[in-house]
């Protein structure tokens, strides 16, 4: 396939610029292979985060030709044959160095989500759930936390509303807890207030970039928005609850966990 030219952004939080590298591309190579080759040949100190190189750990997210991608799953032959391949760090989170960003925001937010709390085990010491009931949450649990959805979400990316809106990854984490057949915690008020479900305008870029093909918008965020409507906006549903009481056996989280940082 011959040599290809790469424009890789290099720098840190203070600033930086694109550097151009050339490297030999062979059959079957992915973008991460090219980055590694460049690192080994001519840029030993090029910073790039990666682990499994098989699309399972979600470490190597970056922007390839302006699009959020896992570099380990982006084949070179899927890119246009002409021109430089432009590689940047993800935009939503602050750059540490080169292609590596500080994603600690995510760990802080995850800690704010009230944890799973199951109902009692059955008499024989097991939990019973039907496959069709868990199908729905297993979709969300496929998430590899690559944060590409967080990168492409314009609420975080362009408007920097990180204090107001928790972002798509954490909305589907919330969905996986809220729709869990065994869980007994009520997170709906938090989803509206602290996690900001109203900030999402369901423009679906998160779903478009998800490498695990999770239907974040239709199956995760919108159902949560509808549950928030049930609770806070639908006058008939609210009246019904007032008159006949709330049949759900869920309870509000006992302790709301603080905002302590997860990373040093």
């Amino acid at each position, binding site marked *: 396939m011959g040599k290809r030219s790469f424009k890789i*952004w290099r*720098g840190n*939080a*203070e*600033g*930086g*610029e*694109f550097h151009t590298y050339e490297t030999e591309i062979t059959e079957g190579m992915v973008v991460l292979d090219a980055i590694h080759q460049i690192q080994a040949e001519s840029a030993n100190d090029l910073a790039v985060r990666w682990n499994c190189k098989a699309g399972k750990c979600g470490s190597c997210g970056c*922007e390839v*030709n*302006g*699009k*959020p991608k896992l570099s380990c799953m982006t084949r070179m032959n899927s890119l*246009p044959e002409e*021109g430089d391949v*432009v590689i*940047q*760090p*993800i*935009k939503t989170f602050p*750059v540490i160095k080169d292609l590596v*960003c500080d994603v600690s925001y995510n760990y802080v937010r995850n800690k704010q989500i009230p944890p799973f709390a199951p109902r009692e085990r059955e008499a024989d010491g097991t939990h019973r*759930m*039907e496959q*069709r*009931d868990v199908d729905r949450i297993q979709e969300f649990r496929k998430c590899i936390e690559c944060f590409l959805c967080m990168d*492409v979400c*314009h*609420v975080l990316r*362009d*408007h*920097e*509303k990180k204090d*107001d*809106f928790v972002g798509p990854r954490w909305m589907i984490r919330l969905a996986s807890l*809220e*729709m869990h*057949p065994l*869980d007994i915690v009520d997170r709906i008020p938090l989803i509206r207030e602290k996690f*900001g479900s*109203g*900030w*999402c*305008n*369901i*423009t*679906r870029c998160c779903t*478009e970039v998800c490498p695990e093909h999770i*239907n974040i*918008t*239709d199956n995760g965020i*919108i*159902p949560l928005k*509808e549950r*928030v*409507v*049930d609770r*806070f*906006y*639908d006058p008939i549903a609210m009246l019904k609850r007032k008159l006949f009481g709330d049949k759900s056996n869920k309870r509000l989280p006992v302790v709301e966990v603080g905002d302590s940082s997860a990373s040093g």
Partner: protein
Amino acid sequence: MSSSDTVLPGGHVVGLGETRRPDKWWVGPLLTVSFIGVAIGYGTIAMLMGNHYWVGAEGHGFGGYLSPLYSPVLMFDASAAGAAPASHAWFGAFPEWYPSLLPKSPAFLILLFPGAFRFTCYYYRKAYYRSFGFAPPGCAVEGVRRGKYEGETKLFLFQNLHRYAMYFAVIFNIILTYDAVMSFFRDGALGIGVGSVVLTINATLLAFYTFGCHSFRHLIGGRANCFTCDGKETLSSKAWSFGTFFNQRHMQIAWVSLAWVMFTDLYVRMVSMGIWTDFNTWGEAATKTVGL
């Protein structure tokens, strides 16, 4: 696009439409704008016309084609060309007190409801937030009002009432289904015409559009966390699966059904005006419209 030179660490340029995507990301929004523009344009004109929305046997008898933009006919103007028979108008003719500034068109009285359903639809919201609101114009393409965005927390809070628009849509679905059945009759005689097929497809597509509605899917089953916890599959579980099937195709159905509604009106209009010939089993005489 914008000539702002601010470059963030990471090499991202600040400004409307800024992106490093080399592909034609603007094609999608452009198509959306064009399509919605055509639909709104046609719909408005068709509504303002106030005529040629009915095809029947000399304008009377049981059965005929009624344009979906005009159904149900709440009040009507009997003097308009191609108007429905008086028996169709739920409340008869436009009353004296009807403000003269408003168009005397039956469509004007009802289009708010399907309009609201589409406007608050979770799919159309994406389409117009992106292509009209530039929030964002494309994925990884910077939009407008950097930092001033409010999402659906203030001005757009009303979107939360989408389900009420859906309730009305269900009523409309029932009425349009009735209209579709009626299209197989002409002066009491059972038959079939191209128009019957057009109206039936229209009612079907609109039903599919409602079945795929996110609020519908939530209310018929999605709100539950456990479908089978009592040991057997509940009805709501089956209903939810049914809604999910259409929900996964909501975007496609949204566009096709919108186009088909416009086409159905056009078809009825053209036949009513005598420009197109409706091939049917009833014969030429059965497709006369009043006032022609």
